[in-house]
């Protein structure tokens, strides 16, 4: 293939991706600032009335708080469990290791709807926990694979003799982990946590089965609202969610450089090897 044709095709491909990935977001943003009373592009003028409207809807505010709290809780627990799991399966070979790896990855492969339904049936059967607890368990399952994956990647090539060296020099096991291992896998832990937070915050598939009348997450509330009352406010809420997620990723990027983590510049290979 001659380079020019190659460049042309690559350019066209990139343009298509931009149009189809970013196009809907642009349309959504346009709709959210329409002055019309129905879903349309802002032909009749630009207005922030739907954002005003949104802020007066306490159901959305409550749901947003629920979503943030849930995402924080799920992420915090997942980070601890996922990091421990990643260390166990990376460092040791033990009976059941394959099963643990499979279980930790399962939520990635099983349709969310099935996971949600299964958790609902399970909790109904044992009859404990309200919607908040059920959602927390579900979201831990949902987010765990991302932490395990990201931390495992940063542990690849890690020289465990470093921990032995720390113990030999008088560190406790906890101290050895905190001073020697954790600083080296931190980019992976943070990237995993960022993924976990966004995944939890945006989830509809599992959550829709587990929310109750008195406890809804923002995406579920939005979904329910859109089902019977289609106003441009939906667009305003969506834009707000997108901005929140984007701001979150940007913050993480600023603080820790997620790009570096995702580019694979994680973990510190033994320099002497």
């Amino acid at each position, binding site marked *: 293939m001659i380079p020019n044709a190659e460049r042309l095709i690559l350019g066209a491909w990139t343009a298509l991706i931009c149009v189809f990935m970013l196009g809907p977001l642009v349309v959504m943003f346009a709709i959210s600032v329409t002055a019309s009373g129905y879903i349309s592009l802002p032909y009749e003028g630009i207005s922030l009335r739907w954002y005003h409207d949104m802020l007066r809807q306490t159901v959305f505010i409550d749901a947003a708080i629920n979503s943030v709290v849930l995402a924080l809780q799920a992420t915090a627990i997942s980070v601890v469990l996922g990091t421990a799991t990643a260390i166990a399966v990376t460092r040791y070979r033990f009976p059941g290791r394959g099963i643990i790896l499979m279980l930790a990855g399962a939520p990635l492969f099983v349709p969310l709807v099935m996971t949600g339904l299964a958790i609902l049936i399970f909790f109904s059967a044992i009859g404990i926990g309200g919607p908040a607890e059920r959602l927390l368990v579900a979201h831990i399952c949902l987010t765990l694979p991302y932490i395990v994956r990201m931390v495992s990647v940063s542990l690849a090539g890690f*020289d465990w*003799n*470093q921990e*032995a*060296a*720390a*113990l*030999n*020099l*008088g*560190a406790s096991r906890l*101290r050895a982990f905190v*001073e*020697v291992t954790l*600083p*080296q896998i931190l980019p992976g832990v943070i990237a995993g946590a960022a993924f976990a937070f966004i995944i939890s915050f945006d989830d509809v598939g599992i959550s829709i089965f587990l929310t109750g009348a008195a406890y809804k997450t923002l995406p579920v509330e939005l979904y329910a609202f859109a089902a019977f009352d289609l106003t441009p406010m939906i667009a305003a809420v969506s834009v707000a969610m997108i901005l929140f997620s984007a701001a979150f990723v940007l913050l993480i990027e600023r603080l820790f450089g997620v790009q570096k983590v995702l580019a694979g510049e994680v973990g*510190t*290979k*033994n*320099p*002497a*090897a």
Partner: protein
Amino acid sequence: MTSLSATDAQYLRLSGITKHYGGIPVVNDVSFGVTRGEVLTILGPSGCGKTTTLKMIAGFLAPDQGSIAIDDKRVDTLSSHQRGAAMVFQNYALFPHMTVRRNVAFGLRMQKLPAAQIAREVDEMLARVRLDPYAERYPKELSGGQQQRVALARALIIKPKILLLDEPFSSLDAKLRKQLRVEFLEVHRAFGITSIFVTHDLEEAFAISDKVAVMNGGLLEQIGSPVEIFARPRSRFVADFVGHKNLISGDVANGVLTAGALSMKMPAGTANGPTQVTVPVHRVRISRGPVSGDNAYAAAVSSVTFLGPAMQIGLEIAGTAFEVYSPSTAELADLAIGDRVNAAWDAGDVTAIPASGK
């Protein structure tokens, strides 16, 4: 060395150390002592139990049986850092996210010493191992030799009684290994620290050690000075491992071994009966002219390999194949296959290998 106290002669003492993995003994009833200030190398092929033995001394593994004492104090029930045995790891296991200074300071920080004292001791240590210009660098910015000095400094700063080194050169090329060997010996001399070194490399073991302990299949085969190990192997395995080629089985009667058409005088006091002996490759003298020795023969040259300072020469003596190493003298420069030479060695160079040694 001046007179040693009983404790100094057994500064490190392993008694009946045994370790099983899944019912298989990896280290089997190993006992030896190490004299204060000396370098002892545990030498053996991979899987012989040498690293397991070192890990038990370091406290990373607990022996199933036996005891370990350092400076007359039993340590096998103590945790790693309470034993006074500091470890230098394979590939050094330096902390890549810490500067040289912080790597070296780690052990002192764990002891919760005052910051000013830590800074002072680290500075002193860095100066002693000539790392002061590199204090603020990270390990990956250092050469192999500098990394080794960081590893040694990090271990030595906690003032251990014993230094343990687990094949620290194994992943390096031959030239660097030799350089690091010299550097290690310099540090060893400067600190005079009792050191246990693990390697599978014969030349390395001989070059750095006061004493060598040869292990095979979890058993301690022989312990002694490099010269003893090389010249007087006490088992078939050690003889093979240190490069003996001329292992001959025969019958001894009245101080003479007979193996087919070959007969050879044995050292005085050799018992009668079936015996296996080794004739060390470096003790055979050969010449086109006459050579003297207790055992002198006419030999036919069957192979010649020029190795630079030495020549590896295959000989046939009384129907038995021999391999010898001889200096590359002018006389032997044009030695060719089929040449007739004279070969001789002394009765005292012949070493009987005990039957128990397989």
